Each structure stands twice: as structure tokens, then as C-alpha cells.
């Protein structure tokens, strides 16, 4: 996806020079391999900072909350769905945005690559077309991007932006034969004790850094429920019950809104597969209410609306 960079720079330059936007939010090339840094530019002279490749895995929608200026922003499939959700939830107005749509072929999973080279230190990573080459001090290997996609990207069915003012390239083919919920079904099949143990072991490394929450564009509450003190809902220590409470409740607050962008999993410093919480709720939303978040501006969010034909066996 390296080839999109030129087009993004061109578009940003035009937008800033013509005064159509006040700022442009995108990525700039990172200082360590497989990482890129979100950047905000407000001047056409800075457009050469902008960069796009298969390591742009954060969700830029995070930076829209609370802004009142006119913003140009790059957005791939999942990010664009988060923009739709943001607009529907009144966190930003549509007419503030100029969305540069990116038909996304998927983001590279930096942890999988690290494992593939057996944790040796990676000094450089270069992308070319459908492959990427990893170089270290005494090794060099080339891989197919397709084999090292982030887990959410490998099952993504909305790679093209659902909303945009301009696209940097023609749309890519959507993946259709994917079983997005294979892992969820496995967990659903466990008995309650096994399930509890599975989740307890999954989060036992959690250090409550809240990177998952802060990287998530849906988490924009001025005071998160874990930070409330009058009354205090969740303890602040590393107690495993408090940690489980945080993760489960946060997943529920994202129910019907999560676009599976994978930012939470990507940023976790201890490698917890956070999406195991939210994916179950996404599956329920899809199966019980035929709902996928952020597809069009014309829908109200799932938990905002009660349709007469909604699944309602739980109302007794």
C-alpha cells in the first residue's frame, strides 16, 4: 500500500493550499520498524511528512473527538466506519471532514512478524507490492503480506471506505469467504468453568495501562467508568477481578459500535488478544439484530433504537 503515499500528499497539499481544511491528520513514517506516528499538519509545506504503508494500524478517528476545525483525514475501511459512528454519536460533524478514502489491503501484525524471525531484532522493514522484506543484523527474509495480516484484517469484509470525499485508488476486492467468528464459536462451545479460566488466563498479564481503551475511538467518555470515584465502581489495583471487570464492561460499552479495527490488540504492550471480548458482542449484534456498526449515516446506533421485530426473548 506504499503507493498510496504520493496521492495522499498530493491531496493534502491541494486541500491545505486551497484552504478547504484547516488541518490534515495522517501518519508520518515511524522511527522504529513497523510503527508509524499519527501526525497533524496545518501547512502545505509539511505534506512530505505524510506517509502510508501496511503498518498504519492505529485508528485516526481517535483524534477527531472534540475538534471544531475543518479536518482532512485519511481513512481506510474500518476507520471510515468509526467516522460514521462518530458522526452518528455527535462527536464530530460531517461537514467538518474531508475524508480521503483508502482501499485497504490489510495491516501487518508486528507481533506475528517478530515471532516469525524468532524474536531477533528487526532493524529495517521494506514493503514492495504484496510482499515485505525484514532485515536484521545477520538475516533477511521476505514474506507475503497476506500471510502476516493482523487478525482482524485477515477476516475483514469492509476493506473499502464506506464514506469518503475522494479515494486514493480504485476499490479493492472485498474478502467474502471468511469465517470472522471462528474463534468466538470455539469459546462459546466451552463450559462455564473452562470459559472463566480461559478469560482469566488471557488477562493475567494486564497492567491496567489503559492503552486499549485510549486507542479505541469509541472510548471518548470525559470520565471513564474506571476513573469514577463517587462512587468508585472498579478498584485501581492489579486485582484480577477488578481487571476482568474493566475489560468486560468496556467491551459492553462498545457493543454494537465496534468496527473491529484492531487498534486495541495492536497497542497492548503485553500481547493480550483484547478482541476476544468485543468480537463476541459483534457476533451477537450481527446474529440477533442483523447489525454491523458504522455502515451508513442513515442508521441510528444499535442500542439507540428498538424495532418491533427485534430479538426480544429476554423480555419476559
Amino acid at each position, binding site marked *: 500500500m506504499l503507493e498510496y503515499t504520493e496521492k495522499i500528499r498530493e491531496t493534502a497539499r491541494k486541500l491545505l493550499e486551497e484552504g478547504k481544511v484547516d488541518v490534515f491528520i495522517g501518519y508520518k513514517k515511524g522511527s522504529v520498524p513497523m510503527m508509524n506516528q499519527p501526525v*497533524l499538519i496545518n501547512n502545505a509545506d509539511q505534506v512530505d511528512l505524510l506517509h502510508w504503508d501496511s503498518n498504519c494500524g492505529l485508528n485516526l478517528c481517535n483524534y477527531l473527538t472534540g475538534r471544531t476545525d475543518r479536518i482532512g483525514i485519511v481513512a481506510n475501511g474500518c476507520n471510515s466506519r468509526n467516522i460514521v459512528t462518530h458522526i452518528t454519536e455527535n462527536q464530530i460533524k460531517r461537514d467538518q471532514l474531508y475524508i480521503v478514502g483508502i482501499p485497504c489491503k490489510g495491516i501487518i501484525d508486528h507481533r506475528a512478524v517478530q515471532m516469525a524471525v524468532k524474536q531477533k531484532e528487526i532493524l529495517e522493514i521494506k514493503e514492495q507490492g504484496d510482499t515485505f522484506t525484514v532485515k536484521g543484523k545477520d538475516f533477511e527474509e521476505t514474506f507475503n503480506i497476506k500471510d502476516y495480516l493482523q487478525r482482524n484484517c485477515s477476516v475483514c469484509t469492509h476493506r473499502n471506505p464506506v464514506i469518503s470525499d475522494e479515494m486514493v485508488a480504485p476499490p479493492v476486492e472485498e474478502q467474502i469467504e471468511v469465517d470472522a467468528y471462528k474463534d468466538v464459536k470455539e469459546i462459546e462451545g466451552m463450559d462455564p468453568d473452562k470459559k472463566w479460566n480461559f478469560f482469566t488466563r488471557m488477562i493475567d498479564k494486564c497492567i491496567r*495501562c489503559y492503552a486499549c481503551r485510549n486507542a479505541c475511538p469509541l472510548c471518548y467518555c470525559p470520565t471513564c467508568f474506571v476513573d469514577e470515584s463517587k462512587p468508585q465502581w472498579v478498584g485501581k*489495583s492489579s486485582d484480577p477481578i477488578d481487571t476482568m471487570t474493566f475489560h468486560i464492561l468496556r467491551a459492553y460499552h462498545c457493543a454494537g459500535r465496534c468496527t473491529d479495527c484492531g487498534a486495541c490488540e495492536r497497542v497492548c504492550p503485553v*500481547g493480550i488478544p483484547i478482541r476476544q471480548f468485543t468480537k463476541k458482542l459483534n457476533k451477537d449484534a450481527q446474529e440477533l439484530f442483523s447489525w454491523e456498526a458504522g455502515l451508513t449515516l442513515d442508521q441510528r446506533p444499535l442500542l439507540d433504537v428498538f424495532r418491533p421485530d427485534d430479538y426480544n426473548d429476554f423480555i419476559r
Partner: protein
Amino acid sequence: MTKKIYTKEEWTEALKGLANTYKIFVPVMEGDFHTFKALDEKKIPDLDFKNTQLSPKSLVYPQSERMFEYTLDENAPDANIIKESEKDYSPQAIVGIRPCDAHAFQIVKPNFDNPEYQDPWWIKRYESTTFVGLGCNDPGPTCFCTSVGGGPFSEKGLDVLLYDLGDTFLVKALTDKGETFLKKTQGGKEADEKALKAGEELAAGAADKIEVKVQTDRLKDKVQTELFDAPFWDDVAFACINCGICTYLCPTCWCFDIQDEVLGKQGDRIRNWDSCMFPLFTLHGSGHNPRSKKVQRVRQRFMHKFKYYVDKYNNGVQCSGCGRCVRNCPVNIDIREICELMNGFLHENQ
């Protein structure tokens, strides 16, 4: 001071032999990365590692620690009286700690141990710990210990230093505590001239391998308030998502929170790690928050590490160059770039 040579197998056996005297912590591979864990039959210590994901600061300064306990039962004679909790300060040894992490403890010490106040838990646990370091033959691309007063074979904060000579370890005692540790360690032979020379060459060569140099020489000369008003903070802070990764992984960060937790009639006063990156950190009871904006918090962290600490303690910068924040910051905010910006900042009259 004792200097010995061990083969790598002998060393692992020797550690097992110390199990009754010290609680030994070694790096083990768990999942994708290494952690310091107690020496255990089932886990293989891996001294071939680069560094652990989380710093070993939790072995001296745990993430959550009970300070006091009390009963709220009005019928008890000591109701509402706060009492110290029992602690276990039996001797422990961290084997394989990297010089940057050991140096970090020395950087943190003036905060918890100063003439006016002493933190009993940090100090007692620090004093009961023997630091057996492993020099870095091959510093990584994100390491910059040499720029902040350390080095891949720096002896700061260490009691014993191991040199990995390939098939053997050269083991040097550096302090009395280290001497005691080595006297209790079985096996090994007196180190010969060849081994000592090999160790010296290893150390000299390792420092040269660190390519990235970060300038810190002019930080002391800057005027606090002018550096505070520098124009680059807005750009630096844009990407930050205000999580706690940098502060929790950092071996030199020390901020904490004190909370009371009650279940029924029993309660504890607990100390937990906290982060200046969180918005609530400076929130007053009245609702006023002097650092309510993200840029203020980001600026605070770097100003504290590279300016306020420098001015206050005359002990260098509050960074040991371990590179964890560089590797793990989810938005790739690079502390090396920011330090350069700060060091190179020109005042109006320059």
C-alpha cells in the same frame, strides 16, 4: 573482589544451589516476551535474551502493594486505627538484570530515600536485593544507555556483573553484597588473565555498537520556564493517547497512588502505580485540573525526566536508555527525538 569463571550449565546449577539462601529471579520466555520469574524447575532461565518486556522495577516496587490494614468494626478495640501490614523482606537476587535497569534503581533511589523521608517498603526491599547483572554484548537499535550516563557493561547499581564469553560466564563481584553472593555460590573456577582480558575487550566493543547518540549536555543550562513555553510541545504531543505504557514499562518512572479498599468490615490501604499521563492525576477535589489538556501532561513527563529531575537531584537525567518506551509506545512517540529537541532548544537571546 572475587572473579570467577563458570560454564553456562555450571552457572544454572549454581543458581539452583542458592535456592535456600536467596529467592532467585531469572528471565524466562513467556508467550512472546521475557519476564523475570522466580527460579523454578518448570521454567528455563534464558540468559540469551535482549531484555524483559516489563522492567524489573516490580521486584523492588510492586505494582500493587498493601501498606496498611485496619478494621472498621466498631466493636473492636482497634477500630479505625491504621496498622502496618506484615511484609517479607527475605533476601532476593535478580540474576540477568541488564545494566540499564540496574542503573535505573540508582536513578529512582533519591526519590524514595532522602534525608527528610524514607519509604520503608522500597528501601527494605531494595536493600534485601542483590543485583547480578548481565552485560550486553549486543545492544539493540533502540538502546541509548551510553547517552544517559550508563553503558552496556556499566557497573552502576550492580553487585555482581556477568560477562557472556560464549560458552562461559566471567563473574565479577563489584560490592560487598556481591562478594557475599559469590561466596555462597558453588562451583566455578578462579578467573584467569585470558578470561579477564576477554571480558574487558567485550565491554569496550559493546559500547561502540550503540549507534544512536542522544545529546543531554545542555539540559542543565536551559531555563525551566522558557523550555516549558517552547513551541514544539504541541507537535510532540499530538499523537499521544495518554495511556500508561511508557510510565509502566519505564524502570525510572515512580509515580504512585494511594487508595483505601474495603470489603465488609476489613480494609486495606494500597499503593498502586499511577501515571502522570492519566487526566485524573492532578484533578483537585474542587474540580480544578491544572493539567487537563493532553499537551500539558506530555510536556510534564518529558520536562520531569530531562529538566526537573536534572535540576533537583544533580544525578543526571531520569532515563536509563533502556528503549522500552521507544519500542512499545503505541503511537511511536520517540523519547530520543524529544530529548534532542529539548537539548537543542535555543532561548531567545541565543
